[in-house]
């Protein structure tokens, strides 16, 4: 079954609006995706019919909200093939998820220990580890990538040593679109008993995610990059890790018994969820993941591959364009530069023609600079984008280049 994109686009009200008098072509999905009515209505329904604080009250609404909230947790667990709902911690998003793990690992990393990341990491999966290493006098090691933007697996093999305490890598690069061989990387780390954290921010909306299959220890993602609301995301952690690690914020549902001299803490996953949670966000995220599930992630992948191939072919034929990131395994992200033209000028003119792209470092300055650049233009695709939109984009791009050259 293939997707009926024309029909599906009607689920996204914002796509009908105009920008600068032109029909919106939204190619900034790697920054955030638009939201379908199913998600918008779910949040509205929660506040209209179900709003109450969870895990607290004996009254009807509180129990209803708690049921829905915990049901959503189970859904998320099954969506990413976690062992149990206990392994799903709700956070504000990928960045917070990575920061939580980095701060929990403080006690497990000492002077001279090593943390491995890759050369293509987003700042959110780089800076927390860099700062942790600085604080603990540990060493941050960076696994290199080749000129196509693929992870150097041979280097990785050699870089995993008895000193390594953590390996953190992106599932998909937000600049290059590279899909990393996470399963293989985990196997290498597993041989030396090294925990692996996967930044799944750019993966969840585009690829099937199976944390049990990948065998990773932690997996982080945000709802808003997968058609869900902003400000909510997930930290998956293997139960054995989450049991072992201490809580990092205190108060609210995370406690069990409290006296002035002592507190005992609640079980998983509540141990890591201090304070009133973002219930509407969680329900919105559930609706978003259900939306993807209903469309079929395989169909989404096929559709986005078609868009990526088509756009790549068209850009390759355009003079002066260099595509940044040519990995064999790639998804939904197309970064490029135009000879002699500043990405920002292109982004500004494309915007005038209704085409939304991102320009600059994309919060991943080191990888952009490793290609000798101070920025790229990035077109990133989502479920609702069409081949016609790629045509509009490429025409607008050619027009912009002509104006700027």
């Amino acid at each position: 079954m293939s997707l009926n994109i024309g029909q599906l686009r009607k689920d996204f009200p914002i796509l009908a609006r105009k920008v600068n008098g032109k029909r919106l072509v939204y190619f900034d999905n790697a920054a955030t995706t638009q939201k379908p009515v199913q998600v918008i209505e779910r949040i509205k329904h929660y506040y209209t019919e179900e709003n109450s604080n969870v895990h607290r009250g004996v009254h009807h609404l509180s129990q209803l909200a708690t049921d829905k909230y915990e049901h959503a947790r189970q859904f998320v667990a099954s969506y990413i093939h976690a062992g149990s709902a206990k392994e799903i911690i709700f956070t504000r998003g990928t960045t917070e998820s990575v920061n939580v793990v980095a701060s929990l690992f403080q006690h497990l990393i000492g002077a001279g220990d090593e943390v491995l990341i890759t050369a293509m990491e987003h700042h959110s999966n780089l800076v927390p580890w860099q700062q942790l290493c600085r604080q603990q006098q540990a060493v941050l090691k960076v696994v290199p990538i080749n000129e196509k933007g693929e992870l150097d697996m041979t280097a990785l093999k050699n870089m995993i040593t008895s000193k390594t305490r953590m390996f953190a890598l992106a599932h998909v690069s937000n600049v290059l679109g590279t899909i990393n061989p996470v399963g293989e990387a985990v196997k290498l780390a597993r041989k030396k008993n090294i925990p692996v954290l996967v930044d799944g921010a750019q993966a969840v909306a585009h690829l099937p995610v199976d944390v049990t299959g990948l065998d990773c220890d932690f997996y982080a993602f945000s709802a808003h990059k997968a058609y869900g609301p902003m400000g909510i995301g997930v930290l998956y952690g293997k139960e054995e890790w989450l049991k072992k690690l201490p809580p990092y914020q205190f108060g609210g549902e995370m406690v069990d018994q409290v006296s002035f001299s002592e507190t005992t803490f609640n079980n998983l996953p509540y141990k890591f969820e201090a304070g009133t949670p973002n219930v509407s966000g969680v329900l919105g995220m559930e609706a978003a993941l259900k939306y993807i599930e209903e469309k079929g992630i395989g169909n989404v992948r096929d559709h986005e591959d078609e868009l990526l191939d088509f756009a790549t072919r068209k850009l390759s034929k355009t003079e002066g364009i260099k595509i940044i990131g040519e990995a064999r395994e790639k998804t939904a992200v197309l970064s490029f530069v135009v000879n002699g033209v500043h990405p920002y000028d292109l982004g500004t003119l494309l915007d005038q023609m209704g085409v939304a792209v991102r320009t600059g470092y994309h919060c991943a300055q080191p990888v952009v600079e490793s290609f000798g650049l101070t920025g790229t233009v990035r077109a990133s695709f989502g479920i609702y984008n069409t081949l016609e939109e790629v045509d509009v984009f490429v025409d607008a791009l050619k027009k912009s280049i002509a104006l700027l050259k």
Partner: protein
Amino acid sequence: MTIQEKQQAVIEEFSIFEDWLDKYAYLIELGKELPLIDEKYKTNQFLISGCQSRVWMHAELKDGKMIITADSDAVITKGIVSLLTRVFSGFSPDEILEADFVFLNTIGLKDHLSPTRANGLQSMMKQIKLYAKVFQLKSNKKSE
């Protein structure tokens, strides 16, 4: 001409273009016509933060007037930079500090510039005023 009159002149210049494309084409032409700044000032010291493209700005006081030179690696920004220097360069620090900055709104470009670029604009304007403030303080000190 006063700063106000110079701003008015820019507004009139842009009023002949109805289409955004023509406005940008003109801005790009203005941008291409520069190098406005001495190469020796294109260093991090003169870089203005807050712009996605890089903008360098230098100012000096000659006979009581501020001479502003600037450059950018993005050509649209360069066009804006050239308008700014045209309007503000050659006036005394007092005049610059008193001036209202209106013309980019009126020529219908500010709305068309993305927020990050608009922020960059703010940073450029702030930098011009900062230079003026410094020169004003210095000359007040001398006259004391």
